[in-house]
């Protein structure tokens, strides 16, 4: 069954998986390429592996929550992602859901 550390790691990983979409959408009101987004999230305390982030960005784009375009003006071509109008609407709802969830959890954990 695994020790305490393993159990905690498993649940923490599931919790992070649940919030990562919200975190990514919240940081893409300005265009960001994958690596810069990863650094922004890390600076704010949320470390995401690129093996998780890049496929997630592609999935969100396929779900039309993000838009992307290649920019070739810099030192190397980079793909920039930005939240789409649909993504903005979804994010608004998700933020509300998140706030409700935090309130509920605060009440449960007090």
């Amino acid at each position: 069954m695994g020790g305490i550390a393993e159990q905690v790691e498993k649940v923490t990983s599931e919790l992070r998986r649940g919030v990562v979409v919200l975190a990514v959408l919240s940081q893409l009101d300005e265009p960001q390429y994958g690596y810069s987004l990863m650094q922004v999230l890390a600076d704010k305390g949320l470390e995401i592996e690129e093996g998780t982030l890049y496929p997630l960005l592609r999935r969100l784009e396929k779900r039309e929550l993000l838009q992307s375009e290649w920019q070739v003006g810099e030192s190397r071509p980079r793909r920039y992602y930005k939240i789409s109008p649909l993504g903005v609407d979804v994010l608004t709802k998700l933020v509300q859901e998140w706030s409700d969830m935090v309130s509920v959890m605060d009440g449960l954990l007090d």
Partner: protein
Amino acid sequence: MELIERYVQQVGRFLPGRDRDDIKNELRSLLQDKLDDRVAGSASADASEDDASEDDVVALLKERGSPRKVAASYSGERYLVGPELYPQLMQVLRTGLVVYVIVHVALLALGSTVITIPSLIESALSFLGSIPGFFGAVVIVFAILERQDVKLKELESDWDPHSLPAIDEPGRFDLVSLFVGLAFNMIFLSFALHFWRLGGVPLVANPMSEVMILPLSRRLLFAAAGLVTLQIVTDLYVFLQRRWQVSTRVVRTLLDATAAFPIYYLLLEVASGLVGRVAPVENLLPLARQGLKGGLILVVAITLIDGAVKVYKSMPRR
């Protein structure tokens, strides 16, 4: 850095075609950014990717994990088999199918004294019918492994970026297609030898009836079997060498084109015999001859053009 490009190319080999170039470009860009950061972190402020040592690149790629694992992360969710095991599942299915064909043909050859056209059709249908069962069994095994949380961390820790194949390596061979070719050649060879022993193609499968043999030229059968044997030998040599060379490509192309001729004449004999015995319809034979002649020209032309392209690609660049 060449190692990064080799890594990106290798990841691309495991990716679905429609997204491959896009993901490769994004991965290349990410690795270069990370390498810049790594070098900047350990050297002067204006250090760049060009200042990176091979050790930096190797360490970066090892952190990232094997190309198979990276490609698997883009595979999305699977209902039965997750992204970490999915590439292995596909590899087992591909390789297993080739082995399955060989075993099936071997059993057919061992189990029957006379192979007739109807028995061949029956066997082929039974084989096709059994394929879903084979695929299902493999998928179930992988689904169980998935649920047992079997991961590939042990393999991952052994992964060495230096083992990456070269970029567009001339003469790189595809193991699966080589074995598929070998399997089909061996099937052909076993039939050619069987028909050579009988002196022709048996036509009747009904055990109550006498087997009717459609005679074929033993010299043609011998020539076809000989050429196919040489093809098998060439393929085995390529397998041992682990690469195509210009010489093996030329030999294989010439053998392919030459083998079409005895097969063409054998098919002509079969057509003449069938029209005479089974379907005595006027004007059918000239039509069959025309069709076979057109087929021969097409096969030889495609073989030579394809072979020329492959020979060109096998040539080492500078």
